[in-house]
Every structure is written in C-alpha cells, then in structure tokens.
C-alpha cells in the first residue's frame, strides 16, 4: 500500500519538479554570462506555450515519429517514479539498476529512430551521434552504479541507498570515484557540456537538438519535458545513491517533508555544479568525447576493484 502511494507521489513529483531545475541551471548560467536571464519558472511557461501551439508534421513521418514522444515521456515518468527520491522504505521491482538503465535506453532508442524517421539530414547525423555517445556512456553508467551494488550486494537501488547511508565516512574513497564516473555519464546522458550544448542554434554541432528539429507544438513539449525529467532523474540518482543522507526512512509526514527538503537541497547543489561547469568550459570536439567516457569507465572499474 505504502509503495503504491509513494510510487504515485513520485509519478507526479518528477514531472512537476523537473522543469524547475532546467530553469535553475539556465538562470545560474545567465549570471555567469553577465545576463539577468529569464526567471526559473520559464521552462514551465515554455511547455505551456508549446502545448497550446499547432503542430507541423513532415509528410514523410511514419507512426514512429508520432509515437516516439509518448514513449519517451512515459519511460521518464515510470523511471522517475521507481527510483529512490525522498524515501528508502519501499522497493518496487522496477527499482532495479538494470531495469532503470535499460528503460532509459529504450527512450534513447526511440528518440534516435524518430530523428531518422523524417529523412531530415540533421536528424540522421543527430541520431548517429547520439547512438555513438549512448553506446560509449553505457559502460561508465552501469559500472559506476554497479560499484555501489557490490557494496550493497544487491542491484536494487533502494537497497543500495540504505546500505550506503549506513557506511562510515572512511569507506567513501571508492564511492567518490564512482560518483565522478557517474557524473560524466550524467552529463553525456542529459546532453550537457562538454558533450552537447543545450543552448546552441548551430544545427551542424547538435546532438540531442538535431534529433528533435522536426518536432513542434505538443509533441515537442512532451520531448522537452521528457528531457527535463531525464535530467532530474540523473540528478536524483547522483545525489541519492552516492550521498544518501537525509532520505526519509519511515512513512510519516514529518520524515517525508524532511526527506523532500533534503532532496531538493541536494539536487539544487548538484544542478548548480552542472551550471558552473557548463559556464567555465568549452564544448569538447566530437572525437574527444570517447576519451572522457572511457575515463568514466576506468574510474568505475577502479572503484569496483577497491570495493571487491
């Protein structure tokens, strides 16, 4: 019963909160550029605007193009509901590491298909780049969380959170290594610097944006929303798996509220970190990306070998 309530709560919580963190990152970046920037609620207004717009659809678009936004959005909210966000007292079968990672991969797969579907030249190169990056990211992503799974002797994320929060500070060296590896995968998966530039208008340099160039109106809104969800999912995984303190351990209103507050604070700090990083470096050359992604993999392996 409690599982269902929490699951439903998170089902709503992630999509409701996710545009806020996109707005916060943009706001912080604006400050670094001597700009005032739009308010942190701007992404909500943009979604509202897009949901009220008409759509233009290519004549060559097939059912994949039409279905992809729904699939991608659905995947992100299901995953968002299944990961540990405010509490560690429920464990759904969906909270398994491999289930989460490959559910997200399913979304990426359909996004890449949709990019190619209309035959747009940019969509094709976007999809090709996305699959290259996604394939190279997967190792670092899985192995960094796997390091924690070895600690917890379970691949269930909730169990991992419980175990890691009971660890003494001295055992944190491998966890920090795994966190760095995860952070690299986070940046790659959520199409951020140094992998992709979410603010660019240059079609030729795009990865994520190139795939969704053909979308407009409501479907674009769904995809933008799904990207925001995905960003929040990765932020949550980052803060809750690697720094799990403060998660609600019991199902009482007080504990839940405290858990939520701590969660928001942690996610805010991590997203601010992402914004600072994006403001201080240039995007990497496409063929240098595998170097960083490989670093992510190696760091995970080191973390695992320290744990075993």
């Amino acid at each position: 019963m409690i599982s269902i309530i929490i699951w439903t709560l998170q089902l709503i919580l992630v999509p409701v909160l996710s545009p806020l963190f996109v707005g916060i990152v943009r706001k912080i970046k604006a400050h670094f550029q001597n700009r005032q920037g739009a308010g942190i609620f701007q992404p909500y207004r943009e979604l509202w605007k897009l949901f009220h717009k008409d759509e233009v659809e290519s004549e060559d678009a097939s059912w994949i193009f039409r279905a992809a936004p729904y699939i991608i959005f659905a995947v992100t909210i299901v995953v968002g509901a299944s990961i540990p966000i405010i509490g560690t007292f429920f464990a759904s079968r969906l909270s398994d590491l491999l289930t989460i990672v490959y559910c997200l991969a399913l979304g990426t797969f359909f996004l890449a298909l949709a990019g190619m579907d209309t035959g747009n030249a940019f969509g094709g190169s976007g999809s090709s780049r996305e699959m290259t990056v996604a394939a190279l990211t997967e190792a670092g992503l899985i192995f960094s969380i796997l390091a924690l799974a070895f600690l917890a002797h379970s691949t269930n994320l909730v169990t991992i959170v419980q175990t890691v929060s009971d660890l003494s500070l001295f055992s944190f060296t491998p966890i920090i290594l795994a966190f760095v590896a995860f952070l690299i995968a986070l940046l790659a998966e959520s199409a951020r610097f140094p992998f992709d530039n979410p603010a660019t208008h240059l079609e030729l340099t795009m990865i994520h944006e190139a795939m969704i160039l053909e979308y407009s109106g409501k479907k674009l809104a769904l995809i933008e929303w799904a990207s925001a969800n995905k960003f929040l999912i990765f932020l949550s995984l980052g803060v809750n798996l690697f720094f799990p303190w403060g998660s609600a351990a019991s199902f009482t209103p007080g504990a839940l509220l405290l858990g939520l507050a701590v969660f928001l604070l942690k996610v805010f700090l991590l997203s601010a970190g992402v914004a600072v990083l994006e403001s201080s470096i240039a995007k990497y050359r496409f063929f240098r990306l595998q170097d960083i992604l490989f670093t992510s993999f190696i760091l995970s392996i080191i973390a695992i070998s320290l744990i075993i």
Partner: protein
Amino acid sequence: MNLENIAKKYLTSKFHLNLKGKVISYAVPAEEIVEHCQKLYFQDHLALKTITAVDARKESIGFKVLYVFGIPKENVFLIPFVIVKDNGQEEFPSLAPYIQEAAIYERKIKTFFGLNPLGHPDIRPLLLHENWPTDKFPLRKDFAWDTRPEDAIDNTYEFQKVEGEGIYEIPVGPVHAGIIEPGHFRFSMAGEEIVLLEAKLGFVHKGTEKLFEVLPMAEKVKLSERVSGDTSFTHSLALCQAMESLLEIQVPKRAKYLRLIFSELERLANHFNDLGFMMLDTGYSFGGSNGARLREMIMQWNERLTDSRFLRGVNIIGGVTKDISLSTRDELNTALSTIHQDFSEIIAIAEESSSLLNRLDTTGRLDRQIAIDYGVVGVPARALGIAQDARLDYPYAAYDTVPCPLSLAIKGDVRARFSVRVKEVHASFALLEQALNNLSALDANFSVQTDLTALPRNAIAIGIAEGWRGDIVYTVITDNSANITRVDVRDPSFLNWNVLGYAGKDNIVPDFPLINKSFNLSYSGNDL
C-alpha cells in the same frame, strides 16, 4: 616615385599610357593580355586587386575588361585593359588557367556582362540563380535597372558531386537557425569528416552595382554604407576616396584623422563581436557574452559620436560630417583605456582555458599556397603570415602619419585567426590613442565644399581601404561625357568565400560553424 618612373619600371614603351591621379591605364591587345598580366603578377609580384568590365558600347568601343594591379607602398595602380568587340561573340582570353584568383572575377563578368572568357574551366553563373534567364546581362547598359525579367524555368545548377560508399550529403541553408544572412552549403561527408564543401551564394543579390550607376552622387555614398552593414564606414570611405581622387580633392588633415578614428572604432566593434562569437561557438559562453558586451560599449560610443551605431552618414566626398570635440576626446580616451584593460583581462582568462584552446588549435587550417593562389585578403591571409594590409600598403586617411603595426600569425587555423584579431584589437587601441592625441594640434576644418559635377572624362579611380575583414576596393569609371558609368565593388568576402571549402575540408562537420565564424564573411558584400 612619380607616375612616369613607375610606368618606366613596370611597362615597356609600346603601350599608350594614360597617367592620371594614382592610376596608369592602358589598352593591351587581347592576344597579349594573358602574358602581360602574368608578367605583372608573377614577375613583378603586383597584387591583383580586381578584374572588372565596363560597357562602353555607347562610345562605339565595345566592352572593356580591366585588370587592376596595385603597387604596394607606392599607392599606385596599373590598369591594363582589353577591348571586347560587340560582335555577337564577345570573347576575351581567360586568365583563370594561369592565375587562379582571376577565375571568380571572370565568372562574374560572364554572368553580369555576358562576355565569354575563352579557356575558363568553370563558367557556371555566379550569384544569379536558376530563375534568371541566361541571355539577360544586368550590368549591360541596355538592361534597365528597374526591370525584372520573367523567371526562367529550365535552367539547372550542377553541384559538385562526391560518390562512393558511406558518402552522405547534407544541404544546409539558405535559411539558417541563427540570425545570419542566407547562403546554401552542400556538405559531402564520410562519417563526420567533411570530404567536400560547396557554397552557393547570391541569395541577397540586390543589384547594388547597377544601382550605383543610377543614383545621384550623395545617394551613392549612402548606398555604399549599405553594401555590407557591419562595414558601413570603411565601404563608404573606399568610395569617397575613389571619388576624391577622381575630383582631385585634398581632404583636410583633421578629416583624415577622424576617418582613421572611426575606421578603428568600426574594427574594434567587429573584432570584439567576432572573438565573442568564436568563443560562443565552442560553447565557451563566458567569452561569448563578454565579446558582445565589449562590442556594445563601442557601438554606444559610435552613436554618441556620430548619431549612428554603424557610423552611417559620417563620410562625405571631401571629408566627414562629424567632429570630435576636445572634451569628448578626453572622455573617449579614458573610456577606451578602460575597455582595453577589460578586453585584456577577458582574453587572458580565455587563453587559460584549455578546453577552448583545444577547439581552436589546428581546426580549419588553410593551406598557405591555396590562400595565395586564391588571392585571400585580410584576417585569414595575415593568419598565414602573408604580410598585407591596405593601411600599410596603400596608406590612406592618416595611416601614413601614425605607426600601424602588422598583426600576423603563422598557422592559418582558427586559433591563428583568433590571435590575429586579438593583436589587431591591441593595435587599434594604440592607433586610436595616438590619433586622438594628435587631434588637438589640427586645424578645425574637417570637410571641403566641392563641386561634385566637375568629373573628368574617361577616367578611372581606385579607392581602397582596409575593412575589418580585409581590403575593400572600389573602382569608379567615367565615360566620355563625364558621367559615372560604372562602380565596381570588391568586398574582401568575394575572394575569401572561395577558400572556405578548403579550410573546412578534412575537418569534422560539428567544427564547421566555428571555422565559418573564424572567417565571418559577408554575404551581402559578396552578393551585391
């Protein structure tokens, strides 16, 4: 050297020379022109500044094709020309097989005058598109400027084609996602690598050169300010200098200094913008936003000094319309030193960023020989160590009275073009400081009244000025009733567009926008 001595040095006595102002023009028989131009170009190392044509059928001469060679340091131009008979063939020998940079001029002459360069390897129409009928030549006198021919239907345009396994073609433009001018690019790529890049331009063709022939004199200056909006001042300066040399006007010294000051302000604003955008295109948003901020500071000074952010309405034939008072000068001096310090700090931070430098280094390298063959000018040329700058080679305004350093780099990649701009910014600040300090000692007069109708007959004048992209060349020609019959505009972009494909080749597609930005060429100035 005076004109006679220069003529003796470069030319044999068999030509009938016409010496006037800074120009030596002479007819060369069609069968000798190729050899003669090769001698001037390869043996005497003169710079080919432009090749243009004029319709002189009214004077029963036919057409003339003029080859403008500049003699650096002397500030004198040799203009051999051939006469093309109006006999239904309209042929003249092509220089293109021998001198690569001639190819693009001859293609333009073929499209706009309908004169056929014999032996030219590529005579596809330039700038005018498939909807333009191939038998209408807009710069001929019998084509009225305000007519529009019916669209042609069955013309085709052949892009170069790369075939083979894994070759993927991406058409980009003419309408782009950013707020830039329109142009079509065709990429052939193997994976992410650019195998071939071909640009098709002409989407902003406005008939500027034709309009120059019809507009009254004051409007001509206005029109030149609109050839390429970001270079308003230098374009009108080049035209005014050509007109002043036709009319034999001595511009007051104060006007010369003011022209230098405004030119350098224009250069500063645009270099700030370019440096900012190059950094922004790598995603280095700190540099990007600061570039925009610095540019805006200069633009606001422009507005304060001249009531125009783009320095329009400042140049007139015979001088300038705006003066800088002593108190304003002192304020400007203070402001400039603040901006200079600001700029130095930003560049110091940017050059500490290894992720930025990694994107700039080795990207978009242009081969030196290709650059020389295609006659590349301005920033991309200096980024290859090719020492040319119209401010030094053809001193105008007050550039001969204040020391003007040459800003060079060697490697010819994006980083080199970046650093040439940085050096030129520093040089501009130094030039501005000296020119502003010299201003107080000058006579208050900053323009001369002139009779703009007293033009000489059958004369040619060249106006050249170094815009922030490269040298801008105006060729003004009068007919035998002393009317202006032709104004040829050669924007630096007209030459530099030809090598963009070479700079992009073998790079990866995601780097192309950065390479393009490091050239930042004008579409409007090219398309005219």
